[in-house]
Structure formats: structure tokens, C-alpha cells
């Protein structure tokens, strides 16, 4: 019985598929009219045949045949074959489309009377062809195993050019691999260019080579779900879009770009940003939303950004690996240096999930940068930079400048950093500060090894209230231009050539675990700028350096212990009251007792391994009482106090000097 049912079903489907279709062939274009829809097909003057509103010049008709093809309304297929292309148009669209074919170069213009979405299915291959379509109604473009290279442009230099300002779905069909390459000349803005907004879907693969400008360019928003997009080469950006960029899932890989990996800008610059809108309706924000999938970007160009947003960048899930290898460069237009950066926002960055791995190896390179606020509440951020300071005054370039920058215009150099937040803008003789850094959760790991490379810098205030922050840096591990608030979380910092944690204003430590290791000499584990104060009211704090900033008393002050000793990586430093251990710290494995320090900014001398200044604060300390501080195997009795003075390590290292110093 089952067998009969299957046979029956197959027979029914076969019969149902045997619909009659009138095929009208005009050159390379075939119009398919279902017999059930044609009605009267009228001849006029012996020269014209009109079928379903489409008037054919009889002299143009190559042939008409009738077969049992099933026609799906609102569909167009283009099959490329070497130097030709066969276009098939469903009958109900015939009167609304104008198709022209020149070899394998196809142009299809949609009339403004089109009122239903058309699906264009492209397949086959050609080493010199293109697909150009224009219109004013939304459309879908399916890629069904298409390999298309535009060598000699006819309608556009792009491989696919959609001159349509509406929503265009681009679907690399499941199981297919599609490759697009544009011409090396022309006026195209992208190998795949869409004037309107593009939604990439389906789980096929799309490979793109942009020989003239961008790999993929959309005039309006770009969104992706499930698809795999590989931009293997682009003269400019890998992907460039307006309004906003949304990655919900799928895989994007960008390499070989001549400029940024992904860039998103506000489209209507006169009106300005709409900000994020509900469901992104009518949004024009320049924002980048990373909500899932896997994104890999490798940028080698000078001063290139892996991911660049004119608006905000928001990361909620997904895996993002961004590597920049280019050095900085001199920007003639702005008369200043520019440097490479993994993720860059002209506004704010918010990370509440996902895994970001950012690597910058070029001179002046940064892992992450934003002009506004950086907020990290969850997720994992790993940053590694290895380039030195980039110097360029428009005529002289130095890709590893080691001189003193105190009297050098900031326009002439770009400092490498792991994470840079905010702006410090000079205004006459004063400064304005903008942007803040807030870490309340997640895991942040920053490593910098190049000259002058700070770990984490805020050009305004800095808050750490939770999460795990680990920094191993060349220059300051964590620095803020304005006040710094360490209120929670676990913070571990080692700086081999400057302060561990440094605030250019007051610093308030009220909670969490803070281990800060600075270099020798005048460099501190914890330091604040002259004229400002360090307040400790809670938390567990260990600061190791050639020096440490003094601690000031305030309401609720937690006592501190200040001592010195021979400190080495991996050691245990503990505080005991009698037989009770009040606190125990492990010196970071990245700490180097031979780290060099400085006196004012130049390369300094080497630290004597004999002694470092050690500052400890933890709960349970009473002012005036003595506690046993054990550094490694050496113990001493230290008296607690609510204050301490700026202190140098006993028998401290040789003092270094700046250029021309002693």
C-alpha cells in the first residue's frame, strides 16, 4: 500500500508539473508565458505580437515553442556560459522588464510599475560578464553556483551591480560556492554593489575580489545571517556600507584589503545620526552590531582599521578575530599621523558578550579605540600589540621612535596601545576630556610589547567594578587622564617600563583585588599625578615598583603597609596577623625584576634585583598595629597606617635618564 502511495504521489507531481508554457525567445532572452495566463495574444499590423502586456516586434522573435515547463511568477534566471548568457523571464514580468544582453553582460531594468518582489537566480560561469539591474522595488538575488568575472565592463565594472535603492536580499544558495570578481577599471564602488540595503542570507558561500575599490559596497545597511562571505582581495575596504552593519550569524572573512576591513558610515550626513532605532527601522547611525557568527579580518594596509564605525560598535555574541599589521602613516588631508587599529569607533563601544581577539603588529598600532565610551560587561577581549611608537612630521618617518615625546606635537606621532578610550582635546591653554571606560564584567587581557605602548588608557575617567582585567605592557599598564575608580573585579598589571596603574588625577580604590607591578627607579606599581591623591577604602591591593605613590587618608580609609624587598615572578607575598593570614598575593608570572625604569620619559637604567617597593592594603589592618609581611621566604614586621608617603624601593635601582640625562 505504501509503495502504491509513493507511486501515486510521484505520478501526481509529474502530471501537476506538466503545465503548458509558451516560450518566446528574443535573442538570448526567453519569456515564459503559462498557457493558463496568456488569454488572447494579439497581432497588429503584421509586425507586433502582444502577450500579457508585452509587445514583441515579430522581427525580433527568434522562435516560439510550447512545452511543459513550470513557470514560477516573478522570477528571472540568468545562466552564464563562457561568453554568453541565457536569460529567462516569467511571463507575468515580461511587460515590466527590459532585458539586454551583450555576450555575457546582462542588464535588466525594472519598470517603476513593478509591484511584487522579483527573484533573480544567477548561475553558471563567465570570465567576462556581469549582471546589472535597476529598479525601485525590493528584489532578491539568488546565487546558484555562480562564477562571474567582469573583465571588460559594458553596463558597470562591477560583477553584480544593483542600482536599486530598496531592500535587496542576496542569497548564496545552500551548498553552493559563488565567486565574483570585478573589472580593474570602471566607476564601480564595489565588486558587488547594491545602492540600497542588502540582507545576506542562506548558507552558501560567496567569494569576492574587488579590483577597483571595495569588495562589497552597499549604499545603505548591510546585514548577514547564515551566509559565508569571503573577501579575498579589495583595493579599498573589504565591506563598506552606510546606515548600519548587522551580523546576526554566518561567517565573514576579509583579507587583502587596501584599506579597512569593514567600514560603516552614516548615510545622510546632512541630517546626521538617528542613533539606534527600534528594530533598526529607518536607522542611519553608522553603528556596527556584532551579534553572532564568526568574523575574521586581516588588514595589512598602513593605518587600516579592521572594523571601523562612524557610530557605535555593539558586541553581544559571536567570535571576532582582527589582525592589523600595517604601520602608521602621514595623513596629508588632516596633517597628522594615523595608525592602524583592530576595532575603531568614532563614538562608543559596548561589549556584553562574544569573544574578541585583536592583534596589531604595526608601528603605532592599537587593538581597540573609541572616541566615546567603552563599556565591557561580559565577554572576552584579548588584545596584543607589538609595534613601537610611530613618528611622522610629514617629511621624516620613524617607525620605532624612542625619543622623548614631551615636547613633540601629538599630531606627529601615534602611540601604540592595547585599548584607547576617549579624547583629550586641546583648547587654547586648557583641555577638554570626553569618553569614559567602564569594565563591570567579562575578561580583558591586554599585552603590549612595543616602545611607549600602554595597556589600557582612558582619556577621561576610568571605572573597573567587576570582571577580570590582566595587562602586561611596555608602558603604563592602566592609565587615566582623569579620575580612576577601582571598585571591584580582579586586576593584575605588570608594566616593564613604566607604572603599573597610573592616574593623571585622583585614584580611588574601594574594592576588588588589585595587583599592580611597575618598573624600577621612579616608576610605580600605583601612581597618581603630582598634586593629586591616592585613596584606598577597600579591596585587596598589592603594588610593586621602584616606587609607589603615597596613600592619602579619607573617610573610611583602609590601612596600608609599606615596605620593600626582593620580589620575583611567581612569588607569594602575604600579610599575617599572628597565625592568621589576612591577605595573600601571587606576583604575576609576567613580572620581571630586571624591568627598566625611567626618570621622566627616556630609556632608563636597569633595576637592581635587590629591592622593590611594596605597598599592601587589605581588610583587617588596624592603624598602629604590626603585621608580618612575607615576600617569598623573607619576612618582616611592618606597622599599618592609614597613610603612606611616596616611597622608593630600598637600595633601589640605578636612576635612568632621558636623552642627554646623566
Amino acid at each position, binding site marked *: *500500500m505504501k509503495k*502504491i502511495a509513493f507511486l*501515486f504521489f510521484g*505520478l*501526481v507531481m509529474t*502530471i*501537476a508539473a*506538466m*503545465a*503548458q508554457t*509558451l516560450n518566446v525567445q528574443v535573442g538570448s532572452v526567453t519569456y515564459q508565458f503559462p*498557457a*493558463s495566463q*496568456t*488569454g*488572447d*495574444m*494579439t*497581432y497588429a*499590423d*503584421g*509586425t507586433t505580437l502582444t502577450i500579457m502586456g508585452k509587445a514583441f516586434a*515579430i*522581427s525580433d*522573435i527568434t*522562435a*516560439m*515553442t*510550447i512545452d511543459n515547463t513550470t513557470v514560477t511568477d516573478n522570477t528571472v534566471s540568468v545562466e552564464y556560459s563562457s561568453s554568453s548568457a541565457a536569460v529567462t523571464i516569467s511571463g507575468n514580468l515580461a511587460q515590466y522588464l527590459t532585458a539586454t544582453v551583450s555576450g555575457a553582460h546582462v542588464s535588466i531594468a525594472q519598470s517603476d510599475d513593478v509591484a511584487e518582489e522579483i527573484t533573480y537566480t544567477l548561475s553558471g560561469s563567465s570570465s567576462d560578464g556581469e549582471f546589472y539591474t535597476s529598479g525601485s522595488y525590493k528584489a532578491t538575488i539568488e546565487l546558484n553556483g555562480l562564477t562571474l568575472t567582469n573583465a571588460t565592463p559594458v553596463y558597470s565594472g562591477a560583477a553584480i551591480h544593483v542600482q536599486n535603492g530598496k531592500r535587496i536580499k542576496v542569497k548564496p544558495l545552500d551548498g553552493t560556492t559563488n565567486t565574483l570578481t570585478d573589472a580593474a577599471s570602471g566607476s564601480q564602488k564595489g565588486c558587488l554593489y547594491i545602492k540600497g540595503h542588502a540582507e545576506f542570507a542562506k548558507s552558501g558561500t560567496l567569494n569576492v575580489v574587488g579590483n577597483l575599490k571595495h569588495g562589497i559596497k552597499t549604499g545603505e545597511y548591510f546585514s548577514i545571517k547564515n551566509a559565508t562571505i569571503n573577501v579575498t582581495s579589495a583595493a579599498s575596504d573589504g565591506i563598506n556600507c552606510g546606515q548600519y552593519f548587522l551580523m546576526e550569524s554566518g561567517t565573514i572573512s576579509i583579507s587583502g584589503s587596501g584599506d579597512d576591513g569593514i567600514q560603516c558610515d552614516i548615510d545622510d550626513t546632512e541630517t546626521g545620526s538617528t542613533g539606534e532605532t527600534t528594530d533598526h527601522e529607518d536607522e542611519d547611525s553608522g553603528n556596527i552590531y556584532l551579534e553572532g557568527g564568526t568574523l575574521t579580518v586581516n588588514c595589512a594596509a598602513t593605518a587600516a582599521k579592521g572594523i571601523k564605525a562612524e557610530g557605535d560598535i555593539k558586541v553581544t555574541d559571536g567570535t571576532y578575530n582582527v589582525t592589523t599589521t600595517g604601520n602608521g602613516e602621514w595623513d596629508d588631508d588632516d596633517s597628522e599621523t594615523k595608525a592602524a587599529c583592530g576595532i575603531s569607533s568614532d563614538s562608543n563601544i559596548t561589549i556584553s558578550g562574544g569573544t574578541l581577539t585583536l592583534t596589531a603588529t604595526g608601528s603605532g598600532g592599537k587593538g581597540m579605540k573609541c572616541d566615546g565610551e567603552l563599556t565591557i560587561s561580559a565577554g572576552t577581549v584579548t588584545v596584543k600589540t607589538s609595534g613601537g611608537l610611530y613618528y611622522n612630521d610629514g617629511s621624516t618617518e620613524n617607525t620605532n621612535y624612542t625619543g622623548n615625546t614631551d615636547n613633540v606635537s601629538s599630531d606627529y606621532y601615534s602611540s601604540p596601545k592595547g585599548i584607547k578610550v576617549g579624547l583629550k582635546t586641546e583648547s587654547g591653554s586648557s583641555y577638554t576630556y570626553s569618553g569614559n571606560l567602564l569594565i563591570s564584567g567579562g575578561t580583558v587581557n591586554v599585552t603590549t610589547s612595543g616602545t611607549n605602548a600602554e595597556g589600557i588608557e582612558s582619556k577621561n575617567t576610568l571605572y573597573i567594578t567587576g570582571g577580570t582585567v590582566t595587562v602586561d605592557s611596555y608602558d603604563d599598564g592602566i592609565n587615566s587622564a582623569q579620575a580612576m575608580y577601582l571598585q571591584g573585579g580582579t586586576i593584575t598589571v605588570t608594566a616593564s617600563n613604566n607604572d603599573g596603574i597610573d592616574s593623571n588625577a585622583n585614584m580611588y580604590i574601594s574594592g576588588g583585588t588589585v595587583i599592580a607591578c611597575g618598573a624600577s627607579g621612579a616608576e610605580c606599581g600605583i601612581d597618581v599625578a603630582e598634586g593629586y591623591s591616592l585613596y584606598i577604602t577597600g579591596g585587596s591591593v598589592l603594588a610593586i615598583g621602584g616606587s609607589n605613590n603615597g596613600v592619602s587618608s579619607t573617610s573610611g580609609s583602609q590601612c596600608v603597609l609599606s615596605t620593600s624587598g626582593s620580589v620575583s615572578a611567581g612569588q607569594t607575598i602575604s600579610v599575617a596577623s599572628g597565625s592568621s593570614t589576612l591577605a595573600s598575593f601571587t606576583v604575576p608570572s609576567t613580572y620581571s625584576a630586571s624591568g627598566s625604569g625611567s626618570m621622566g620619559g627616556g630609556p632608563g637604567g636597569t633595576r637592581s634585583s635587590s629591592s622593590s617597593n611594596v605597598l599592601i592594603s587589605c581588610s583587617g589592618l588596624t592603624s598602629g598595629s604590626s603585621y608580618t609581611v612575607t615576600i617569598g621566604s623573607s619576612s618582616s614586621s611592618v606597622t599599618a597606617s592609614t597613610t603612606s608617603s611616596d616611597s622608593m624601593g630600598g637600595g633601589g635601582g640605578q636612576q635612568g635618564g632621558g636623552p642627554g640625562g646623566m
Partner: protein
Amino acid sequence: MKKSLLTFVAIVVSLMAQAYDYPYLAFQTSDGTVSTVSVESLSITFSDGQLVATSSDGSQTFTISDLTKMYFSTEGTTAIKNIETEKADGIGDIYDLTGRKVDTKEMKRGIYIIKTSNGTRKVTIK
């Protein structure tokens, strides 16, 4: 089982009837004459002002300038054309089986009685 088989057959026959809804392509000329060709393997070409329709039933040629329209049809017109030719040779009136007099243009599928100069004939239009 028998009942299911009968149902299957009925559905298949019905679908087949629907699938071949239009067994013919009809061509109408300016004088009102309608000629049909089978759509089976039908191919149409245009050359020197002529339309040539070739199908499994053979080939028919039309002068394009005489054509007014074409349409898919469920009925063929071969018998009607024959009758027209015969009428030219002396056919009288034509009646359907109810006794109603009909014009050749009205004739659909069915059986008709034709009075000719040579007697009365029964004709079936398929």
C-alpha cells in the same frame, strides 16, 4: 484497497485532464476564421511575413498580416474547416441534435446534421 485504487485513478484522470487543459493553439485571422494546431511539440517560426507552426500533427502556415490573435484552446477546428470547404461546394443548413439550426462559427464539439446537395449527413466535431 479497491476503494483507494479507484480514488487514485479518479484523481490521476482528473489531473491529466487538467494538465492538458489546452491541447490546441488557435489562430484567428481578420476574416474570423479560426484554425487550431496541436500544442504537442509545437514550434513557431516567423519568416518572410509567414508564421509557420509545426507540431506533431504536421505544419500549418499563416500570413502574419492576416492574423489578429492567437490563444490557447480546448477545442480543435479541423472539422469546422472541412465543413466550410464543403459548404462552399453546396452545403445547406446545419442542425444540432436538438434540431436547432447553427452557424459554422457556432459549432463546438458534438454531432451535427448537415444537409448537402448530395443528401443529409451526420458529422462529428471532435
